[in-house]
Protein backbone atom coordinates (compact mmCIF):
# COMPACT_ATOMS: atom_id res chain seq x y z
CA UNK A 1 0.00 0.00 0.00
CA UNK A 2 2.71 2.40 1.01
CA UNK A 3 4.86 1.82 -2.04
CA UNK A 4 1.97 2.03 -4.49
CA UNK A 5 0.96 5.30 -2.97
CA UNK A 6 4.48 6.63 -3.40
CA UNK A 7 4.26 5.70 -7.04
CA UNK A 8 0.99 7.55 -7.37
CA UNK A 9 2.49 10.57 -5.75
CA UNK A 10 5.58 10.60 -7.95
CA UNK A 11 5.49 13.20 -10.70
CA UNK A 12 4.56 11.82 -14.09
CA UNK A 13 4.82 13.15 -17.57
CA UNK A 14 1.29 12.12 -18.45
CA UNK A 15 0.06 15.48 -17.28
CA UNK A 16 -1.83 17.01 -14.48
CA UNK A 17 -5.35 16.08 -15.46
CA UNK A 18 -4.66 12.40 -16.01
CA UNK A 19 -2.83 12.24 -12.72
CA UNK A 20 -5.55 13.95 -10.75
CA UNK A 21 -8.04 11.59 -12.43
CA UNK A 22 -6.02 8.62 -11.31
CA UNK A 23 -5.73 9.94 -7.77
CA UNK A 24 -9.43 10.63 -7.67
CA UNK A 25 -10.16 7.12 -8.85
CA UNK A 26 -7.81 5.68 -6.26
CA UNK A 27 -9.44 7.79 -3.57
CA UNK A 28 -12.88 6.65 -4.68
CA UNK A 29 -11.84 3.00 -4.53
CA UNK A 30 -10.42 3.45 -1.02
CA UNK A 31 -13.63 5.17 0.00
CA UNK A 32 -15.80 2.34 -1.31
CA UNK A 33 -13.55 -0.19 0.41
CA UNK A 34 -13.88 1.57 3.74
CA UNK A 35 -17.66 1.75 3.56
CA UNK A 36 -17.99 -1.75 2.09
CA UNK A 37 -19.03 -3.42 5.39
CA UNK A 38 -21.96 -1.05 5.56
CA UNK A 39 -22.76 -1.44 1.85
CA UNK A 40 -22.94 -5.23 2.21
CA UNK A 41 -24.95 -4.91 5.39
CA UNK A 42 -27.32 -2.44 3.79
CA UNK A 43 -27.98 -4.69 0.81
CA UNK A 44 -28.27 -7.96 2.77
CA UNK A 45 -29.84 -6.79 6.03
CA UNK A 46 -31.87 -3.73 5.02
CA UNK A 47 -32.69 -3.27 1.34
CA UNK A 48 -33.04 -6.98 0.57
CA UNK A 49 -35.34 -7.69 3.52
CA UNK A 50 -37.49 -4.64 2.77
CA UNK A 51 -38.09 -5.84 -0.80
CA UNK A 52 -38.46 -9.45 0.33
CA UNK A 53 -41.05 -8.53 2.93
CA UNK A 54 -43.00 -6.58 0.32
CA UNK A 55 -43.11 -9.69 -1.87
CA UNK A 56 -43.93 -11.91 1.11
CA UNK A 57 -46.78 -9.65 2.06
CA UNK A 58 -48.58 -10.76 -1.11
CA UNK A 59 -48.13 -14.42 -0.17
CA UNK A 60 -49.45 -16.93 2.26
CA UNK A 61 -46.69 -18.86 3.99
CA UNK A 62 -46.30 -20.84 7.21
CA UNK A 63 -42.61 -21.78 6.57
CA UNK A 64 -43.48 -25.50 6.25
CA UNK A 65 -45.68 -25.59 3.16
CA UNK A 66 -44.70 -23.89 -0.13
CA UNK A 67 -45.32 -20.20 -0.76
CA UNK A 68 -48.71 -19.30 -2.20
CA UNK A 69 -49.35 -16.01 -4.00
CA UNK A 70 -52.54 -14.47 -2.65
CA UNK A 71 -52.37 -10.95 -4.06
CA UNK A 72 -53.89 -8.29 -1.83
CA UNK A 73 -55.60 -10.82 0.47
CA UNK A 74 -53.31 -10.07 3.43
CA UNK A 75 -53.99 -6.35 3.19
CA UNK A 76 -57.73 -6.94 2.86
CA UNK A 77 -57.59 -9.11 5.96
CA UNK A 78 -55.58 -6.50 7.76
CA UNK A 79 -58.23 -3.84 7.22
CA UNK A 80 -60.85 -6.14 8.76
CA UNK A 81 -58.56 -7.36 11.56
CA UNK A 82 -59.67 -5.91 14.90
CA UNK A 83 -56.35 -6.78 16.50
CA UNK A 84 -54.51 -4.71 13.88
CA UNK A 85 -56.63 -1.65 14.63
CA UNK A 86 -56.35 -2.28 18.36
CA UNK A 87 -52.55 -2.47 18.11
CA UNK A 88 -52.48 0.72 16.06
CA UNK A 89 -54.69 2.45 18.62
CA UNK A 90 -52.58 1.28 21.56
CA UNK A 91 -49.29 2.27 19.92
CA UNK A 92 -50.67 5.62 18.77
CA UNK A 93 -52.14 6.43 22.17
CA UNK A 94 -48.90 5.49 23.89
CA UNK A 95 -46.92 7.70 21.51
CA UNK A 96 -49.31 10.62 22.00
CA UNK A 97 -49.00 10.32 25.78
CA UNK A 98 -45.36 9.42 26.07
CA UNK A 99 -43.62 11.76 23.60
CA UNK A 100 -45.18 15.06 24.80
CA UNK A 101 -44.91 14.03 28.46
CA UNK A 102 -41.20 13.24 28.14
CA UNK A 103 -40.74 16.47 26.19
CA UNK A 104 -42.33 18.68 28.86
CA UNK A 105 -40.75 16.84 31.79
CA UNK A 106 -37.37 16.69 30.09
CA UNK A 107 -37.29 20.41 29.33
CA UNK A 108 -38.89 21.26 32.67
CA UNK A 109 -36.33 19.43 34.76
CA UNK A 110 -33.50 20.71 32.57
CA UNK A 111 -34.70 24.31 33.10
CA UNK A 112 -34.91 23.77 36.85
CA UNK A 113 -31.44 22.30 36.96
CA UNK A 114 -30.14 25.24 35.00
CA UNK A 115 -31.18 27.56 37.89
CA UNK A 116 -27.74 27.16 39.50
CA UNK A 117 -29.04 24.26 41.58
CA UNK A 118 -26.36 23.04 43.99
CA UNK A 119 -25.08 19.52 43.35
CA UNK A 120 -25.83 19.72 39.64
CA UNK A 121 -23.53 16.90 38.58
CA UNK A 122 -24.89 14.65 41.32
CA UNK A 123 -28.46 15.23 40.18
CA UNK A 124 -27.51 14.73 36.57
CA UNK A 125 -26.12 11.33 37.49
CA UNK A 126 -29.18 10.33 39.50
CA UNK A 127 -31.61 11.38 36.76
CA UNK A 128 -29.64 9.57 34.13
CA UNK A 129 -29.35 6.37 36.14
CA UNK A 130 -32.70 4.81 35.05
CA UNK A 131 -31.73 5.29 31.39
CA UNK A 132 -28.67 3.11 31.87
CA UNK A 133 -30.73 0.01 32.56
CA UNK A 134 -33.41 -1.41 30.29
CA UNK A 135 -35.11 -4.50 29.05
CA UNK A 136 -36.24 -7.49 31.05
CA UNK A 137 -34.61 -6.58 34.37
CA UNK A 138 -36.36 -3.19 34.38
CA UNK A 139 -39.65 -4.85 33.44
CA UNK A 140 -39.36 -7.28 36.35
CA UNK A 141 -38.65 -4.40 38.70
CA UNK A 142 -41.73 -2.51 37.55
CA UNK A 143 -44.00 -5.56 37.71
CA UNK A 144 -43.09 -5.66 41.39
CA UNK A 145 -43.58 -1.92 41.88
CA UNK A 146 -47.03 -2.13 40.26
CA UNK A 147 -48.01 -5.20 42.29
CA UNK A 148 -51.59 -4.31 43.41
CA UNK A 149 -51.29 -5.64 46.97
CA UNK A 150 -47.66 -5.38 47.99
CA UNK A 151 -46.04 -3.13 45.38
CA UNK A 152 -44.24 0.10 46.24
CA UNK A 153 -46.76 2.30 44.45
CA UNK A 154 -49.94 1.01 46.06
CA UNK A 155 -48.21 0.83 49.44
CA UNK A 156 -47.47 4.52 49.09
CA UNK A 157 -50.98 5.33 47.90
CA UNK A 158 -52.42 3.41 50.85
CA UNK A 159 -50.34 5.57 53.19
CA UNK A 160 -52.01 8.70 51.83
CA UNK A 161 -55.43 7.08 51.97
CA UNK A 162 -55.94 6.08 48.35
CA UNK A 163 -56.87 2.58 47.25
CA UNK A 164 -54.63 2.16 44.19
CA UNK A 165 -55.88 0.42 41.05
CA UNK A 166 -54.73 -2.99 39.83
CA UNK A 167 -52.30 -1.25 37.41
CA UNK A 168 -51.03 -3.86 34.98
CA UNK A 169 -54.07 -6.05 35.48
CA UNK A 170 -56.53 -3.23 34.86
CA UNK A 171 -57.32 -2.43 31.18
CA UNK A 172 -57.83 1.23 32.07
CA UNK A 173 -54.48 1.63 33.80
CA UNK A 174 -52.11 -0.82 32.11
CA UNK A 175 -51.09 1.50 29.27
CA UNK A 176 -50.59 4.41 31.65
CA UNK A 177 -48.45 2.17 33.83
CA UNK A 178 -46.21 1.54 30.83
CA UNK A 179 -46.02 5.29 30.18
CA UNK A 180 -44.90 5.57 33.80
CA UNK A 181 -41.91 3.32 33.19
CA UNK A 182 -40.93 5.39 30.17
CA UNK A 183 -41.24 8.63 32.16
CA UNK A 184 -38.98 7.15 34.83
CA UNK A 185 -36.34 7.00 32.10
CA UNK A 186 -36.83 10.63 31.07
CA UNK A 187 -33.33 11.51 32.32
CA UNK A 188 -31.79 10.32 29.07
CA UNK A 189 -33.47 13.11 27.12
CA UNK A 190 -33.27 15.54 30.01
CA UNK A 191 -29.49 15.72 29.92
CA UNK A 192 -29.64 16.43 26.18
CA UNK A 193 -31.95 19.37 26.86
CA UNK A 194 -29.71 20.53 29.69
CA UNK A 195 -26.68 20.50 27.41
CA UNK A 196 -28.73 22.28 24.75
CA UNK A 197 -29.70 25.04 27.19
CA UNK A 198 -26.14 25.40 28.42
CA UNK A 199 -24.97 25.63 24.82
CA UNK A 200 -27.04 28.75 24.13
CA UNK A 201 -24.67 31.75 23.90
CA UNK A 202 -24.90 33.68 27.18
CA UNK A 203 -24.77 37.06 25.44
CA UNK A 204 -28.30 36.37 24.16
CA UNK A 205 -29.59 36.19 27.74
CA UNK A 206 -27.54 39.21 28.81
CA UNK A 207 -28.84 41.28 25.93
CA UNK A 208 -32.41 40.28 26.75
CA UNK A 209 -31.94 41.15 30.41
CA UNK A 210 -30.52 44.55 29.55
CA UNK A 211 -33.53 45.12 27.32
CA UNK A 212 -35.70 44.41 30.38
CA UNK A 213 -37.09 41.02 29.40
CA UNK A 214 -38.64 39.02 32.23
CA UNK A 215 -38.21 35.29 32.89
CA UNK A 216 -41.21 34.29 30.81
CA UNK A 217 -40.12 36.34 27.83
CA UNK A 218 -36.60 34.94 28.02
CA UNK A 219 -37.99 31.41 28.17
CA UNK A 220 -40.37 31.76 25.24
CA UNK A 221 -38.38 34.14 23.05
CA UNK A 222 -34.87 32.83 23.56
CA UNK A 223 -34.45 29.54 25.39
CA UNK A 224 -37.20 27.54 23.68
CA UNK A 225 -36.57 28.80 20.13
CA UNK A 226 -32.85 28.13 20.50
CA UNK A 227 -33.71 24.66 21.80
CA UNK A 228 -35.95 23.67 18.88
CA UNK A 229 -33.28 21.62 17.04
CA UNK A 230 -32.78 19.53 20.18
CA UNK A 231 -36.54 19.24 20.67
CA UNK A 232 -36.87 18.09 17.07
CA UNK A 233 -34.16 15.46 17.52
CA UNK A 234 -35.73 14.13 20.71
CA UNK A 235 -39.18 14.04 19.13
CA UNK A 236 -37.99 11.97 16.19
CA UNK A 237 -36.09 9.57 18.45
CA UNK A 238 -39.02 9.40 20.88
CA UNK A 239 -41.59 8.58 18.20
CA UNK A 240 -39.42 5.88 16.63
CA UNK A 241 -38.74 4.43 20.07
CA UNK A 242 -42.39 4.26 21.06
CA UNK A 243 -43.35 2.68 17.73
CA UNK A 244 -40.84 -0.07 18.51
CA UNK A 245 -41.99 -0.75 22.08
CA UNK A 246 -41.76 -4.49 22.60
CA UNK A 247 -39.75 -5.94 25.49
CA UNK A 248 -41.55 -4.12 28.31
CA UNK A 249 -44.95 -5.13 26.96
CA UNK A 250 -43.92 -8.71 26.26
CA UNK A 251 -42.59 -9.17 29.78
CA UNK A 252 -44.92 -6.96 31.83
CA UNK A 253 -48.38 -7.45 30.34
CA UNK A 254 -48.10 -9.82 27.40
CA UNK A 255 -50.41 -7.40 25.56
CA UNK A 256 -53.15 -7.73 28.12
CA UNK A 257 -55.36 -7.30 29.94
CA UNK A 258 -57.99 -7.68 27.25
CA UNK A 259 -55.50 -6.42 24.58
CA UNK A 260 -55.27 -3.06 26.35
CA UNK A 261 -51.50 -3.04 25.75
CA UNK A 262 -51.37 -4.91 22.47
CA UNK A 263 -48.58 -2.87 20.88
CA UNK A 264 -47.96 -3.02 17.16
CA UNK A 265 -44.70 -4.92 17.48
CA UNK A 266 -46.22 -7.50 19.81
CA UNK A 267 -49.00 -8.17 17.32
CA UNK A 268 -46.43 -8.51 14.53
CA UNK A 269 -44.26 -10.82 16.63
CA UNK A 270 -47.18 -13.11 17.43
CA UNK A 271 -48.32 -13.36 13.85
CA UNK A 272 -44.83 -14.13 12.62
CA UNK A 273 -43.23 -16.23 15.32
CA UNK A 274 -46.10 -17.73 17.29
CA UNK A 275 -48.63 -18.42 14.56
CA UNK A 276 -46.12 -18.48 11.66
CA UNK A 277 -48.30 -16.36 9.43
CA UNK A 278 -45.23 -15.01 7.66
CA UNK A 279 -47.16 -13.46 4.79
CA UNK A 280 -49.65 -11.63 6.96
CA UNK A 281 -46.93 -10.53 9.39
CA UNK A 282 -44.94 -9.16 6.44
CA UNK A 283 -47.88 -7.00 5.46
CA UNK A 284 -47.91 -5.72 9.04
CA UNK A 285 -44.17 -5.00 8.80
CA UNK A 286 -44.67 -3.09 5.57
CA UNK A 287 -47.47 -1.00 6.99
CA UNK A 288 -45.17 -0.16 9.91
CA UNK A 289 -42.43 0.76 7.45
CA UNK A 290 -44.80 3.10 5.60
CA UNK A 291 -46.03 4.58 8.88
CA UNK A 292 -42.48 5.37 9.95
CA UNK A 293 -41.75 6.86 6.54
CA UNK A 294 -44.83 9.09 6.66
CA UNK A 295 -44.12 10.16 10.27
CA UNK A 296 -40.52 11.03 9.47
CA UNK A 297 -41.37 12.92 6.29
CA UNK A 298 -44.14 14.79 8.09
CA UNK A 299 -41.76 15.76 10.90
CA UNK A 300 -39.06 16.83 8.45
CA UNK A 301 -41.57 18.89 6.47
CA UNK A 302 -43.01 20.53 9.55
CA UNK A 303 -39.56 21.18 11.00
CA UNK A 304 -38.83 24.01 8.59
CA UNK A 305 -41.68 26.00 10.10
CA UNK A 306 -40.78 25.59 13.76
CA UNK A 307 -37.18 24.44 14.10
CA UNK A 308 -34.78 27.31 14.30
CA UNK A 309 -31.27 26.84 13.01
CA UNK A 310 -28.98 29.71 13.83
CA UNK A 311 -27.23 29.24 10.54
CA UNK A 312 -27.51 26.35 8.15
CA UNK A 313 -23.76 26.07 7.76
CA UNK A 314 -22.93 25.83 11.44
CA UNK A 315 -21.95 22.51 12.93
CA UNK A 316 -21.84 19.10 11.29
Amino acid sequence: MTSSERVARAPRVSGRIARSGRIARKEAISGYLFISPWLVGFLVLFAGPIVASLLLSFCQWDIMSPLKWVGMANYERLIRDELFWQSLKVTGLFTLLDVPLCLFLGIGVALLMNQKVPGLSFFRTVYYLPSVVSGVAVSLLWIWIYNPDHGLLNNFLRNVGIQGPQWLQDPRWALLALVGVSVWQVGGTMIIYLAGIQGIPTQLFEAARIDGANRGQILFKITLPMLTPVIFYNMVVGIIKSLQTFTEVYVMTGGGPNNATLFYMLNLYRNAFKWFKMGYASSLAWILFLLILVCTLFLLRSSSSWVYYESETRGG
Partner: protein
Amino acid sequence: MRTRQTGNLKKLSAPLVSSVSFLIVLAGAALMILPFLWMLSTSLKPEAKVFASPPQWIPDPIQWSNFSKSLSVLPFGVYYRNTVIITAATILGDVLTAALVAYGFARFRFPGRNALFVLVLSTIMLPVQVMIIPRFILFKELRWIDTFIPIILPAFLGGSAFYIFLLRQFFLTIPRELDDAAKIDGLGTLGVFSRIMLPLSKPSLAIVAIFSFLYNWNDFFSPLIFLNSESKYTLALGLNFLKGHFFSTVSLLMAAAVLAMVPCLLLFFVAQKYFIQGVVFTGVKG
Protein backbone atom coordinates in the same frame (compact mmCIF):
# COMPACT_ATOMS: atom_id res chain seq x y z
CA MET B 1 -40.38 53.11 49.53
CA ARG B 2 -42.12 51.26 46.74
CA THR B 3 -39.04 51.02 44.60
CA ARG B 4 -37.04 49.76 47.52
CA GLN B 5 -39.58 47.05 48.14
CA THR B 6 -39.64 45.80 44.58
CA GLY B 7 -35.86 45.96 44.64
CA ASN B 8 -35.82 43.76 47.70
CA LEU B 9 -38.36 41.45 46.18
CA LYS B 10 -36.22 41.05 43.11
CA LYS B 11 -33.20 40.32 45.22
CA LEU B 12 -35.22 37.83 47.24
CA SER B 13 -36.83 36.15 44.26
CA ALA B 14 -33.62 34.78 42.75
CA PRO B 15 -32.65 32.63 45.76
CA LEU B 16 -36.30 31.73 46.27
CA VAL B 17 -36.69 30.50 42.71
CA SER B 18 -33.48 28.53 42.93
CA SER B 19 -34.40 26.92 46.25
CA VAL B 20 -37.85 25.97 44.96
CA SER B 21 -36.11 24.54 41.90
CA PHE B 22 -33.77 22.68 44.20
CA LEU B 23 -36.63 21.11 46.12
CA ILE B 24 -38.42 19.99 42.96
CA VAL B 25 -35.21 18.57 41.51
CA LEU B 26 -34.55 16.80 44.81
CA ALA B 27 -38.03 15.27 44.86
CA GLY B 28 -37.59 14.10 41.28
CA ALA B 29 -34.24 12.58 42.15
CA ALA B 30 -35.89 10.63 44.96
CA LEU B 31 -38.45 9.27 42.48
CA MET B 32 -35.63 8.20 40.18
CA ILE B 33 -33.71 6.39 42.88
CA LEU B 34 -36.55 4.81 44.90
CA PRO B 35 -37.28 1.96 42.47
CA PHE B 36 -33.62 0.91 42.64
CA LEU B 37 -33.64 0.93 46.45
CA TRP B 38 -36.92 -0.96 46.49
CA MET B 39 -35.45 -3.60 44.22
CA LEU B 40 -32.28 -3.89 46.27
CA SER B 41 -34.21 -4.06 49.52
CA THR B 42 -36.53 -6.79 48.20
CA SER B 43 -33.61 -8.77 46.83
CA LEU B 44 -32.08 -9.00 50.32
CA LYS B 45 -35.22 -10.10 52.19
CA PRO B 46 -36.37 -13.52 53.23
CA GLU B 47 -39.45 -14.22 51.09
CA ALA B 48 -41.73 -14.13 54.14
CA LYS B 49 -40.80 -10.49 54.83
CA VAL B 50 -41.32 -9.38 51.21
CA PHE B 51 -45.05 -8.97 51.69
CA ALA B 52 -44.89 -7.24 55.07
CA SER B 53 -47.12 -4.21 55.42
CA PRO B 54 -45.99 -1.52 55.84
CA PRO B 55 -42.98 -2.50 53.74
CA GLN B 56 -39.66 -2.87 55.47
CA TRP B 57 -37.01 -0.80 53.72
CA ILE B 58 -34.03 -2.17 55.57
CA PRO B 59 -34.17 -5.96 55.45
CA ASP B 60 -33.90 -7.69 58.79
CA PRO B 61 -32.24 -10.15 58.60
CA ILE B 62 -30.28 -9.41 55.44
CA GLN B 63 -30.44 -12.54 53.35
CA TRP B 64 -27.44 -12.51 51.01
CA SER B 65 -28.16 -16.08 49.98
CA ASN B 66 -30.94 -14.82 47.67
CA PHE B 67 -28.24 -13.92 45.15
CA SER B 68 -26.58 -17.31 45.10
CA LYS B 69 -29.99 -18.97 45.10
CA SER B 70 -31.21 -16.91 42.17
CA LEU B 71 -28.12 -17.98 40.26
CA SER B 72 -28.65 -21.66 40.96
CA VAL B 73 -32.40 -21.98 40.31
CA LEU B 74 -31.60 -21.68 36.62
CA PRO B 75 -28.19 -22.07 34.95
CA PHE B 76 -27.50 -18.33 35.10
CA GLY B 77 -23.78 -19.01 34.84
CA VAL B 78 -24.38 -20.22 31.29
CA TYR B 79 -26.65 -17.25 30.52
CA TYR B 80 -23.99 -14.86 31.77
CA ARG B 81 -21.34 -16.56 29.67
CA ASN B 82 -23.53 -16.40 26.55
CA THR B 83 -24.36 -12.76 27.15
CA VAL B 84 -20.71 -11.89 27.65
CA ILE B 85 -19.72 -13.66 24.41
CA ILE B 86 -22.45 -11.96 22.38
CA THR B 87 -21.87 -8.56 23.94
CA ALA B 88 -18.09 -8.68 23.50
CA ALA B 89 -18.37 -9.77 19.86
CA THR B 90 -20.98 -7.16 18.99
CA ILE B 91 -18.99 -4.38 20.65
CA LEU B 92 -15.93 -5.38 18.64
CA GLY B 93 -17.98 -5.45 15.44
CA ASP B 94 -19.78 -2.19 16.14
CA VAL B 95 -16.64 -0.24 17.00
CA LEU B 96 -14.46 -1.66 14.25
CA THR B 97 -16.85 -1.43 11.33
CA ALA B 98 -18.50 1.81 12.41
CA ALA B 99 -15.01 3.36 12.55
CA LEU B 100 -14.04 2.01 9.12
CA VAL B 101 -17.28 3.13 7.50
CA ALA B 102 -17.29 6.50 9.24
CA TYR B 103 -13.72 7.09 8.10
CA GLY B 104 -14.73 6.25 4.53
CA PHE B 105 -17.51 8.83 4.65
CA ALA B 106 -15.42 11.46 6.43
CA ARG B 107 -12.23 11.40 4.38
CA PHE B 108 -12.75 10.13 0.84
CA ARG B 109 -14.51 11.64 -2.13
CA PHE B 110 -16.37 9.13 -4.24
CA PRO B 111 -19.40 9.26 -6.52
CA GLY B 112 -22.66 8.96 -4.62
CA ARG B 113 -21.10 9.65 -1.25
CA ASN B 114 -23.71 12.10 -0.03
CA ALA B 115 -26.63 10.03 -1.27
CA LEU B 116 -25.20 6.97 0.45
CA PHE B 117 -24.73 8.89 3.67
CA VAL B 118 -28.36 9.97 3.57
CA LEU B 119 -29.19 6.27 3.24
CA VAL B 120 -27.08 5.55 6.33
CA LEU B 121 -29.01 8.19 8.25
CA SER B 122 -32.36 6.92 7.04
CA THR B 123 -31.62 3.46 8.44
CA ILE B 124 -31.51 5.07 11.90
CA MET B 125 -35.25 5.55 11.51
CA LEU B 126 -35.74 1.92 10.59
CA PRO B 127 -36.31 -0.43 13.51
CA VAL B 128 -34.87 -3.94 13.22
CA GLN B 129 -38.37 -5.33 13.61
CA VAL B 130 -39.41 -4.19 10.15
CA MET B 131 -36.78 -6.44 8.54
CA ILE B 132 -36.98 -9.27 11.02
CA ILE B 133 -39.04 -11.76 8.99
CA PRO B 134 -36.81 -11.89 5.88
CA ARG B 135 -33.74 -11.85 8.11
CA PHE B 136 -35.13 -14.79 10.04
CA ILE B 137 -35.80 -16.70 6.82
CA LEU B 138 -32.33 -15.87 5.50
CA PHE B 139 -30.60 -17.06 8.67
CA LYS B 140 -32.83 -20.12 8.76
CA GLU B 141 -31.79 -21.04 5.23
CA LEU B 142 -28.16 -20.64 6.29
CA ARG B 143 -28.87 -22.92 9.27
CA TRP B 144 -27.78 -20.19 11.68
CA ILE B 145 -30.90 -20.24 13.87
CA ASP B 146 -30.04 -21.14 17.46
CA THR B 147 -26.49 -19.86 17.00
CA PHE B 148 -25.09 -16.47 17.99
CA ILE B 149 -24.28 -15.55 14.39
CA PRO B 150 -27.59 -13.79 13.53
CA ILE B 151 -27.13 -11.57 16.59
CA ILE B 152 -23.43 -10.86 16.10
CA LEU B 153 -23.16 -10.61 12.31
CA PRO B 154 -25.11 -7.33 11.85
CA ALA B 155 -22.58 -5.59 14.10
CA PHE B 156 -19.81 -6.49 11.67
CA LEU B 157 -21.82 -5.26 8.69
CA GLY B 158 -21.84 -1.58 9.45
CA GLY B 159 -23.14 -1.96 12.98
CA SER B 160 -25.64 0.71 13.77
CA ALA B 161 -26.06 3.75 11.55
CA PHE B 162 -26.14 5.79 14.71
CA TYR B 163 -22.54 4.84 15.55
CA ILE B 164 -21.38 5.56 11.99
CA PHE B 165 -22.95 8.99 12.21
CA LEU B 166 -21.39 9.70 15.59
CA LEU B 167 -17.89 8.69 14.50
CA ARG B 168 -18.10 10.49 11.16
CA GLN B 169 -19.00 13.72 12.93
CA PHE B 170 -15.99 13.21 15.16
CA PHE B 171 -13.57 12.38 12.34
CA LEU B 172 -14.62 15.57 10.57
CA THR B 173 -13.29 17.57 13.51
CA ILE B 174 -9.79 16.07 13.13
CA PRO B 175 -7.74 18.33 10.87
CA ARG B 176 -6.91 16.84 7.50
CA GLU B 177 -3.35 18.15 7.77
CA LEU B 178 -2.65 15.33 10.23
CA ASP B 179 -3.52 12.73 7.59
CA ASP B 180 -1.39 14.49 5.02
CA ALA B 181 1.57 14.76 7.35
CA ALA B 182 1.32 11.07 8.18
CA LYS B 183 1.13 10.19 4.49
CA ILE B 184 4.23 12.23 3.77
CA ASP B 185 5.91 10.30 6.56
CA GLY B 186 5.10 7.16 4.60
CA LEU B 187 1.94 5.81 6.13
CA GLY B 188 -0.60 4.22 3.81
CA THR B 189 -4.34 4.78 3.99
CA LEU B 190 -4.89 1.95 6.46
CA GLY B 191 -1.88 3.14 8.45
CA VAL B 192 -3.31 6.63 8.76
CA PHE B 193 -6.60 5.11 9.88
CA SER B 194 -5.16 2.75 12.47
CA ARG B 195 -2.20 4.78 13.74
CA ILE B 196 -3.53 8.33 13.55
CA MET B 197 -7.31 8.38 13.48
CA LEU B 198 -8.12 5.56 15.88
CA PRO B 199 -5.77 6.68 18.68
CA LEU B 200 -7.05 10.25 18.33
CA SER B 201 -10.66 9.19 18.58
CA LYS B 202 -10.43 6.95 21.64
CA PRO B 203 -13.09 8.93 23.55
CA SER B 204 -15.56 8.64 20.67
CA LEU B 205 -14.79 4.95 20.23
CA ALA B 206 -15.40 4.52 23.95
CA ILE B 207 -18.80 6.16 23.55
CA VAL B 208 -19.71 3.76 20.76
CA ALA B 209 -18.48 0.80 22.83
CA ILE B 210 -20.54 1.91 25.83
CA PHE B 211 -23.75 2.37 23.84
CA SER B 212 -23.15 -0.92 22.11
CA PHE B 213 -22.60 -2.66 25.44
CA LEU B 214 -25.80 -1.31 26.95
CA TYR B 215 -27.86 -2.19 23.90
CA ASN B 216 -26.56 -5.72 23.49
CA TRP B 217 -26.39 -6.59 27.17
CA ASN B 218 -30.07 -5.77 27.53
CA ASP B 219 -31.32 -6.78 24.10
CA PHE B 220 -34.26 -9.14 24.31
CA PHE B 221 -35.77 -9.09 20.84
CA SER B 222 -32.97 -10.64 18.75
CA PRO B 223 -32.17 -13.47 21.21
CA LEU B 224 -35.90 -14.18 21.50
CA ILE B 225 -36.20 -14.59 17.75
CA PHE B 226 -32.93 -16.36 16.97
CA LEU B 227 -32.18 -18.56 19.99
CA ASN B 228 -34.20 -21.63 20.97
CA SER B 229 -32.29 -23.99 23.24
CA GLU B 230 -31.83 -23.12 26.87
CA SER B 231 -28.08 -23.64 26.68
CA LYS B 232 -27.92 -20.68 24.25
CA TYR B 233 -30.05 -18.34 26.36
CA THR B 234 -28.82 -14.87 27.19
CA LEU B 235 -29.39 -13.13 30.48
CA ALA B 236 -32.46 -11.32 29.15
CA LEU B 237 -34.06 -14.58 28.01
CA GLY B 238 -33.06 -16.25 31.27
CA LEU B 239 -34.65 -13.49 33.35
CA ASN B 240 -37.86 -13.78 31.38
CA PHE B 241 -37.70 -17.56 31.80
CA LEU B 242 -37.19 -17.18 35.54
CA LYS B 243 -40.29 -15.00 35.75
CA GLY B 244 -42.50 -17.89 34.73
CA HIS B 245 -40.48 -20.48 36.62
CA PHE B 246 -41.97 -22.75 39.23
CA PHE B 247 -39.36 -21.92 41.89
CA SER B 248 -39.21 -18.20 41.35
CA THR B 249 -40.18 -15.87 44.14
CA VAL B 250 -40.25 -12.09 44.26
CA SER B 251 -37.02 -11.87 46.25
CA LEU B 252 -35.25 -14.23 43.85
CA LEU B 253 -36.51 -12.30 40.82
CA MET B 254 -35.28 -9.02 42.29
CA ALA B 255 -31.93 -10.57 43.16
CA ALA B 256 -31.57 -11.79 39.57
CA ALA B 257 -32.59 -8.38 38.24
CA VAL B 258 -30.02 -6.67 40.46
CA LEU B 259 -27.30 -9.02 39.20
CA ALA B 260 -28.29 -8.31 35.58
CA MET B 261 -28.23 -4.54 36.13
CA VAL B 262 -24.99 -4.34 38.09
CA PRO B 263 -22.64 -4.44 35.05
CA CYS B 264 -24.55 -1.57 33.40
CA LEU B 265 -24.58 0.52 36.56
CA LEU B 266 -20.89 -0.16 37.26
CA LEU B 267 -20.00 0.83 33.72
CA PHE B 268 -22.01 3.99 34.12
CA PHE B 269 -20.21 5.00 37.30
CA VAL B 270 -16.78 4.22 35.85
CA ALA B 271 -17.34 5.89 32.48
CA GLN B 272 -19.87 8.55 33.34
CA LYS B 273 -17.95 11.24 31.51
CA TYR B 274 -18.27 9.36 28.22
CA PHE B 275 -21.98 8.68 28.74
CA ILE B 276 -22.82 12.32 29.17
CA GLN B 277 -20.51 13.37 26.33
CA GLY B 278 -21.97 10.77 24.00
CA VAL B 279 -25.58 11.55 24.68
CA VAL B 280 -24.95 15.27 24.46
CA PHE B 281 -22.86 15.00 21.31
CA THR B 282 -25.49 13.07 19.39
CA GLY B 283 -28.40 15.11 20.69
CA VAL B 284 -27.07 18.62 20.45
CA LYS B 285 -24.68 18.48 17.53
CA GLY B 286 -26.78 15.97 15.60
